[in-house]
Structures are given as structure tokens and as C-alpha cells.
């Protein structure tokens, strides 16, 4: 069963006195299966937050529907076992760290007797142990975001929906969050994780959903996405004879001399690298190294190319 199913959702806002229609999200459809970390990528204004708000039932879609664990997003039951961590930490300023966690814990249905141990567990996970009595407003931005994350871990949710959770964090906090996500992923949690920092996607996610201009650009595994940006295979060989260099160049391969006796050969993506490897081997030339060369994820997603237009790949997201 899909843990999350987004079925052709559209959101049109009406702005200004005349009620001008502004389409924030258009016909976005994807679904997540369990136990995967899926990145939700797109530039600012792509419609990521609106989509997440529709998933969480905070905004009503103009068209389409969202179901979580088979239940419609508007229903209260759909949010049982699901946690949401917003981009900005929105807390009640009159509460302390401990009170904030206790309040959230009771809201997710944790019994009063279990609240203490649950508070300790989640604060430890985000390295905020010992700050229970501190007022939320006295915490730094990074600590507030960690508290936000701690609140999201309450009740051992099956699905975590994170809206740019690492936005504005310092490097140690980013490292903490990344390792936390990996740990949660290893525990079999499903994480849907919005960001525009592509490094985080490559480091943490298995699958990716790409949104741009309110429209879906790509769904599939990060590997299949990188495959689309494959530029070719790089071989480093030694002592390449001149006649063979000319042959390879005639075939459309890039051949360049490196310092020393080494030669760099780039086999463009559509060509079969194994065939050229065999050809070199038959001439008694061995490869010193073989490496895939891919377009950086940033150029692939945000560059001027149409390679991602409404494409679906493999993986736990479709």
C-alpha cells in the first residue's frame, strides 16, 4: 500500500481585490511506498510548501486529492502516525522546552505515564537534553529547529514529512540532522523531505520528486535522476599509441594527454564503454581508472534542459 498518495492536486489561490487566479501547484501526482527517504526538490516558489500543506490538510486542494495510509488528508485519522516538521519552528512562546514536548506528546496520543520517557528520548536524539526548563523563546534558531525536529519524532511516526528542516542550520546541526535522517531511514521510517540543497538529497535520499513552477518535473530514484545527467565514462590509460588516438577521436571520443604518460579518454553517454575497454585491452592497453562523469545535480535540476519534463523513474516513488 502507498503510504502517501498525491493524486493530481492543483491549488489555485485568488489574490487581490479582483480575485486574480494564481496557480501555485498544478496536476501534481506521485506516491510514496514505505521505508524510503524521498527528497522533494525544487527552487524557491516551486510549490513545495503548498504541496506539503495540502498533504497535511492545512490547505484544501482546488482539484485532486491526497491520501495518507489510505485515508483522505482532510480526515483527522490520516495524521495518526504521521509527523510534520515545518521550515520555521512555530512554537508557543509562553511554554518551556519540556512543556512544548509534553503538549505535543499528549496531542499525538502518548499516555501521560509515558510522556517523561518519550520527552527524554526525543530531546536526546536532537541533543537538547538538559534544556527542558528553558523558555522556547530563549533558544537559538538552530536549537528551536532541533526542538521542532524533536517534536516530529514523538510517538514513533511511520511517515515524517519535513519541510526544509535544515534551512538556516549551522554545519554541526546539519550533520546531526543528516545522521538522524539516515538512522530513521535505517529503522524503516518513510521520510518525505523538502529541500533546495541538493547536497542533502545526494547524501540522504534514495528517491526524489522534482517540482518546478508548480508542476512535476521528475519522480524516481536519485540514481536514475543522475543517470539522466550522465555525460559519459572517463578512462585513464597509459601509453596510448598515436594511431589508436586517431581512431578513437574519429569515433567521437574525447582524448586528451595528461601530464606524464597518461591519457584521459571520455566515452560519451550513449556509447558503450565496455566495447572500447575491450578494444584497448586487445591492443595491450590497460585502464588505470574508470569513472562515470555526470552533470552536477544542480545543473540537471535547475539548468536549462528539458530532460526532466514529466518523467517518472524507478524507485519507491512513482
Amino acid at each position, binding site marked *: 500500500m502507498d503510504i502517501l498518495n498525491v493524486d493530481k492536486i492543483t491549488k489555485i489561490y485568488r489574490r487581490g481585490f479582483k480575485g486574480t487566479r494564481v496557480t501555485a501547484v498544478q496536476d501534481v501526482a506521485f506516491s510514496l511506498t514505505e521505508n524510503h527517504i524521498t527528497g522533494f526538490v525544487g527552487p524557491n516558489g516551486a510549490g513545495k510548501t503548498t504541496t506539503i500543506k495540502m498533504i497535511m*490538510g492545512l490547505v484544501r486542494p482546488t482539484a485532486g486529492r491526497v491520501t495518507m495510509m489510505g485515508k483522505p488528508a482532510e480526515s483527522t485519522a490520516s495524521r495518526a502516525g504521521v509527523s510534520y516538521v515545518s521550515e520555521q519552528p512555530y*512554537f508557543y512562546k509562553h511554554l518551556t522546552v519540556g512543556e512544548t514536548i509534553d503538549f505535543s506528546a499528549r496531542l499525538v496520543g502518548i499516555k501521560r505515564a509515558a510522556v517523561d520517557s518519550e520527552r527524554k528520548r526525543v530531546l536526546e536524539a536532537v541533543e537538547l537534553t538538559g534544556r527542558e526548563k528553558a523558555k522556547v523563546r530563549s533558544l537559538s534558531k538552530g536549537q528551536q529547529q532541533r526542538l521542532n525536529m524533536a517534536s516530529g519524532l514523538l510517538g514513533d511516526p511511520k511517515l515524517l514529512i519535513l519541510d526544509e528542516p535544515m534551512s538556516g542550520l549551522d554545519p554541526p546541526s546539519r550533520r546531526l540532522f543528516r545522521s538522524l535522517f539516515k538512522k530513521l531511514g535505517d529503522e524503516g521510517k518513510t521520510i518525505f523531505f523538502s529541500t533546495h540543497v541538493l547536497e542533502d538529497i545526494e547524501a540522504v535520499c534514495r528517491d526524489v520528486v522534482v517540482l518546478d513552477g508548480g508542476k512535476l518535473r521528475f519522480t524516481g530514484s536519485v540514481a536514475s535522476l543522475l543517470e539522466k545527467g550522465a555525460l559519459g565514462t572517463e578512462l585513464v590509460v597509459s601509453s596510448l599509441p598515436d594511431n589508436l588516438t586517431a581512431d578513437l577521436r574519429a569515433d567521437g571520443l574525447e582524448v586528451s594527454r595528461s601530464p606524464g604518460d597518461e591519457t584521459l579518454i571520455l566515452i560519451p553517454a550513449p556509447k558503450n564503454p565496455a566495447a572500447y575497454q575491450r578494444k584497448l585491452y586487445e591492443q595491450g592497453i590497460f585502464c588505470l581508472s574508470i569513472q562515470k562523469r555526470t552533470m552536477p545535480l544542480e545543473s540537471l535540476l535547475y539548468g536549462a534542459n528539458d530532460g526532466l519534463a514529466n518523467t517518472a523513474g524507478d524507485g519507491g516513488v512513482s
Partner: protein
Amino acid sequence: MRVIWLVALNTFKETIRNKVLYNILLVAAVVLLLAMSFGDLSVMSRVQVMSDFGLATMSLTGLLLAVFIGVGVLGSEIADKTVYGVLCKPVDRIQFIIGKFSGLFATLALNFLLIALIFITAITLMTGHAPQPEIFYSIFLLMIEMSIIIAAAIMWSCFTTPTLAAIFTLAFYVSGHLNDLITLNADIQNNPILKTILIILHYALPNLEFFNIRTQVVFELPIAPGHITFAAIYGVLYAALLLLFSSILFSRKDL
């Protein structure tokens, strides 16, 4: 019920930690102290002046609390987005509205209790005996009236800005107290359209004068039999209707 209780408790904590509440209580204490000295200047007895001022102070502080804190409890949740932290959990928006209302009503009840303690103690010290029971009926009806105002403040907060919601709540309070005048105006109207509008307004707005038995209490006049019960049922139903309407509006709101 658990969720309503949690939201109500959080709202109660939020409001009692709000400086506005203490300012309102300070105003109430000052007015009551002044009332003690006004007794000698009035044609009424000191006890009558104290009762009148005491009940009027409760009405005023209740209104101030309902408007300044009532509008804020929902309006600021939406503006500050703290509402996300609650509604992204398995919480129904109706539960949230009822919890907010209950928390604010509990603050109001505490506020009334403190003011009542001050002026009832003052009356007891002045007369040497406990005040007449009608004074408690009056406080009870004031609380019912304020529950309507709080529900109205929450309803306006569902679809407009906190400033406008405060203005609308004040207008609602004033027009509720002038409801009898609307009826009188409708009776003498020749224009059928205006007459119809006034009749609709008369029925749509609450008649807040139902909850005002201050004159009867101060001058020890008889209260019509069944008035307290009728006013209480009317008030509770009206507040429930406003909360239902608020819940429908809030359920449809994009946050």
C-alpha cells in the same frame, strides 16, 4: 475530549501568562477601590454603589478580556502559525475551536472569581453579612453573556484580521445591547425593505440585555420567574451556534 482539554489548558496557560490580563485586573481593582469612596457621594447607599460598580466592572473587564485576548487567541495562532503544530497532529479543527473557547472561558471565569471575591468581601465588610443571592445570579448571567462575546470574537477571527475582529466584536456587543431598540425601530418603519432588514438583525443578533439584571440586583427588585433559566439556555445555545459557525468557517480556511 482529551484534545479539547489539552488545547483548553494550553490556552488557559497562555492567557494567564499574558500581561494584558493583569492590566485588566489592575483596572478592575482601581475601579472597585474608587467605588468604595463614591458611595458617600451618591444618593444610593454605599452597598448599592459597590454592587453596581462591581457588576459593571465585571462586565467591562469581561468585554476587554473577550476582545483583546479572545481575538488574539485564534488570530495570533493563525498569524504566528503556531496552529500548524497542533493541526498537523491528529486534531480536528472543531476540537481546536472548542478547546480555544474553553480555555479562554476558564480565564474569564478566574478573572470574574477574583473580582467577585474583592467586591463581595467589600460588601460583606460594609454590611456585616453576605450579599443577597441575586448578585450571584447576576454574575452567572454575565458569564453567559461573555461566553457569547468570546464565541463571537473567535468567529470573527476565523475570517478577518485581529484588528477588524476586535472592532466587529465590539460592534457585536454594542448592537446586542441595543437589540430592543432595533425592534422599536422596526415597528415604526414604513419602508418594507428596511423593516425586513431590522427584523432579520433583531433575530440574528443576540439580545444581550437578557443577561443584564444589574438594576434588579442593585435596587432589590424582583426578577421574573424563570428568567435566569431562560436567559442561561438562550445564551448557551447562542454561543454554541456561534462556535458551530466558527468551526465550519475554520474547517474551510486555508492556513
